[in-house]
C-alpha cells in the first residue's frame, strides 16, 4: 500500500534524473522566503560560471526530501547534493550513502566554522560530515509594542521575567501572552542544551549507540510541567489555542506577544511587523540561577551523496565553495534570518558597516547564543531514529497539555518509547561504529 508510494516516487526520480544527467542536482526542503533565497543562489551560481550547472529541486519539506532521497538512493537515482536537517544527522552518518565533505574538500579551512556548528556535524575525530548551510538557532522574539502597552518596558531575559510579563499582558487583556508549538527542538533540545542538561546518556549519544534518554529526570521535566501550569493560567498558548493555528503566524499577526522561534523565521516576522509593531529578538530565556550554555545549531546542512562520477563531484565542490563565500552567506542571512556560522563572514558583516542593520539582526545574537560556554551535553544530538522520537515526544506531551496525563507521566512514556527506538536502531546498525 504505502510502499507503492515509495516505488512511485522512485520511478518518478528515475525519470527526473536521467533527463538531467549532466547537471549537478541539489535537493532542498525549504519553502517560502527561504526557498526564494535558495533559488537565487542557484541562479547566481549558474550565471557566475559556465563549467558546471546546478539544478536545485525543492521537495516541499525536509522529511519529504529525506523520504525521496532514500527511495532514490535505493534506485540509484539520487542527487549529488542533498540538504538534510539536524535530526537526521546520525541516520546519515551511519547510512553509508554520503561522503564526509571534509574528505571531498580537504583543503578548505573548516575550522573557520564556529565550534557550535562544527560540533553538531563532526565525527569523533573532528571531521565535518556535512557543510552547514541554513543554520539557525533558537531565539526569543517579542512584540515590543504590545509589551509596552501592558507596561513591560524591559525585554524579559529569564523565564521568571517572561512569566511576569505574561501576567501583566494578561491583566491588560491580552489574549495570548506567550506562544509555542511545543516542538521537541524548541522545548526540549534547545532548553536542555542552554541549561547544560543532557537529553540522553552517553552525552546525547556522542559516545555510543547504547545511550538512553534521561530528559525525564532533568530540570527540563520541571520546565515542561511549568508550561502546562502556565497554559492553564492563560499565559502560554499552543498552536491550537490561537486563531492563526500556528505559533509563528500568530506572533506575526500580532495575536501573540512573545515566542521562542528559530532565527530562520526572523525575516518573515520582521516583514509582517513593518509599520505596525516593533520587534525585539534576543537569546532564548533562561531560568534564574542557571548558568547559560550554548544553544544548538539547527536548520540543515548539505551532504554529498556517494555513487557519482568525477565530473558531478567537481560541480558539487564548486557549488559548495560558492555557498561558503562570504558574500553568498551574507546574502542568505539578509534574505532569511538564518545565521552565518563562519568567522570570516562575521568579520565581513562587521566590516560592512551594516552590522546593526535589521537584516543582520539575528546574526550577532545567534552567534552569541551558540558561542556560550559549552559542555559535553551541549554539542548536539546524536541519537538514532531521532526524527521518530520527536514525533513520540510531541504525541505524549500533547496528551499532557490536553490534561489526559501529567507531564511527568508523558515524559516517562516518551523516554520508554524513545529507548525502544534507540535499541532498535542499535540492533539495525549492529557492528557499525560511530564515525
Amino acid at each position, binding site marked *: 500500500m*504505502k510502499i507503492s508510494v515509495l516505488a512511485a516516487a522512485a520511478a518518478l526520480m528515475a525519470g527526473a534524473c536521467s533527463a538531467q544527467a549532466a547537471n549537478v542536482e541539489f535537493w532542498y526542503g525549504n519553502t517560502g522566503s527561504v526557498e526564494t533565497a535558495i533559488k537565487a543562489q542557484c541562479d547566481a551560481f549558474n550565471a557566475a560560471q559556465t563549467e558546471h550547472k546546478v539544478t536545485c529541486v525543492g521537495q516541499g519539506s525536509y522529511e519529504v526530501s529525506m523520504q525521496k532521497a532514500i527511495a532514490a538512493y535505493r534506485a540509484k537515482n539520487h542527487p549529488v547534493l542533498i540538504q538534510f536537517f539536524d535530526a537526521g544527522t546520525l541516520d546519515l552518518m551511519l547510512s553509508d550513502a554520503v561522503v564526509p565533505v571534509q574528505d571531498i574538500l580537504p583543503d578548505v579551512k573548516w575550522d573557520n566554522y564556529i565550534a557550535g556548528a562544527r560540533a553538531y556535524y563532526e565525527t569523533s575525530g573532528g571531521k565535518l560530515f556535512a557543510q552547514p548551510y541554513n543554520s539557525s538557532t533558537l531565539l526569543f522574539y517579542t512584540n515590543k509594542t504590545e509589551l509596552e502597552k501592558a507596561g513591560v518596558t524591559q525585554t524579559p531575559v529569564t523565564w521568571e521575567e517572561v512569566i511576569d510579563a505574561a501576567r501583566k499582558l494578561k491583566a491588560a487583556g491580552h489574549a495570548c501572552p506567550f506562544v509555542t508549538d511545543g516542538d521537541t527542538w524548541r522545548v526540549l533540545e534547545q532548553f536542555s542544551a542552554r541549561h547544560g542538561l543532557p537529553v540522553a546518556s552517553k552525552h546525547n549519544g556522542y559516545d555510543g549507540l547504547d545511550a538512553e534518554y534521561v530528559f525525564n529526570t532533568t530540570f527540563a521535566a520541571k520546565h515542561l510541567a511549568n508550561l502546562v501550569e502556565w497554559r492553564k493560567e492563560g499565559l502560554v498558548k499552543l498552536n491550537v489555542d490561537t486563531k492563526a493555528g500556528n505559533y509563528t503566524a500568530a506572533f506575526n499577526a500580532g495575536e501573540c506577544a512573545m515566542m521562542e522561534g528559530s532565527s530562520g523565521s526572523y525575516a518573515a516576522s520582521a516583514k509582517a511587523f513593518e509599520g505596525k509593531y516593533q520587534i525585539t529578538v534576543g537569546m532564548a530565556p533562561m531560568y534564574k540561577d542557571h548558568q547559560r550554555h550554548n544553544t544548538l545549531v539547527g536548520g540543515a546542512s548539505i551532504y554529498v551523496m556517494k555513487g557519482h562520477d568525477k565530473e558531478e563531484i567537481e560541480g558539487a565542490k564548486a557549488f559548495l565553495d560558492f555557498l561558503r563565500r562570504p558574500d553568498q552567506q551574507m546574502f542568505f542571512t539578509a534574505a532569511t534570518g538564518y545565521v552565518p556560522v563562519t568567522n570570516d563572514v562575521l568579520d565581513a558583516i562587521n566590516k560592512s558597516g551594516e552590522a546593526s542593520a535589521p537584516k543582520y539582526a539575528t546574526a550577532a545574537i545567534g552567534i552569541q547564543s551558540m558561542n556560550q560556554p559549552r559542555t559535553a551535553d551541549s554539542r548536539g544530538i546524536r541519537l538514532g531514529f531521532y526524527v521518530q522520537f520527536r514525533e513520540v515526544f510531541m504525541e505524549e506531551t500533547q496528551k499532557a497539555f490536553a490534561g489526559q496525563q501529567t507531564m511527568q507521566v508523558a515524559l516517562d512514556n516518551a523516554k520508554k518509547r524513545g529507548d525502544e527506538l534507540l535499541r532498535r536502531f542499535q540492533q539495525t546498525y549492529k557492528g557499525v561504529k560511530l564515525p
Partner: protein
Amino acid sequence: MSSDSSLFSNRWLPLILVAPFMLLVVLFFYVPIFQAFYWSFFLERPFGGGSEFIGFDNFSRVLADPEFWEAGWRTLVFMVIASSLAVVVPLILAVAADRKIRLSLPARNVLVWPKGVAGASIGVIFAFIFNPFVGILAPLNGMFPGIWAPGLDGTDAFITLIAAHVWGGIPFNFVILLAGLRSIPYTMYQAAAMDGAGPWRRIFDVQLPLIMPQLFLTLVLEFTESVTSAFALIDTITHGGPGGATTLLVYKIYTDGFNGYDLSGASTQTAILMVFVVILTAAQFVFLGRRVNYER
C-alpha cells in the same frame, strides 16, 4: 470460455489488451506487497546495505507494542462507525431520492458531485469547516468556551475525521443504492400497498430486502476501504493528533516508515494489516454473503 472465443478470434488478443493493466497491478501492488512481507523478516537499514534476517522478531516486537494495538483499536472503531454511517446515510438519501418527492431529481444529480473531490481536498475543506475559531461550530465555542477543540480533544478530532469520511463516501454508495432501488419493479410496491403496507412497511419489507446485494457490496467495499482511505484525511486534517488520538494503523505505518525510517517496522505492520483485511473480507463473505439473495 466458449463465449470468449466467440468474441475474440485471436486467443492472445484479450491477454494483450489486459496486459498493461496487469502490469500496473503487479508493479504497484504485488511487488510492493511482496517487498513488505520480505522486509518484515529483516532489520532493514533505510539506505540499504547490511540488512539482517531476524525471523519473526519484528512481528513479536510489533505485537508486543501497545501503540500498535491502540492504533489497531482506533482503526477498528473508525471502520465500524465510519463505514456504517457511510452506508446508512447514503441509504437514507437514496430511499428519499427514489420517492416521488419534489427535488428528488436534482438531488440525484447533486449528491454525486462530491465523488469528484479528492480525499486530500476533502480533508482541507473539513479542517476549515470544523475549525474551532472560524468553522461552523465556532458559535458553539462562543457559548461554551472550549467545548469544540479538535486540536486538543481526541474525540473531537475523531468526529471530524468520521464526518469527512462519511461525506466523501456518499456519492459512490448513493449511486449504487439508488440504482438498486430503481431496479425494483414498481408492481412490487403496488402489490404491497394493495395488501395494506404503509410507506415504512414497504421500505423495510420490500425495498431493503430487495437491495441486499447492493447493500452488501457497499458494506464490503466501505469496510475494506475505510482501513486505507482515511490516510488522506488524517494527513490533511489531524496528522494523527492530538496526542495520537487519530493515528490509525495506516497513518502509523506511514509515519514509522517515512518519517522514522523504520522500514522493517512499517513493513511488518503492513503485512499484519493486509492479513487482517483479507480475513475481514473473507469473514464478511462467509457470514453475510451467504444470506444475500441475488435472485429476484
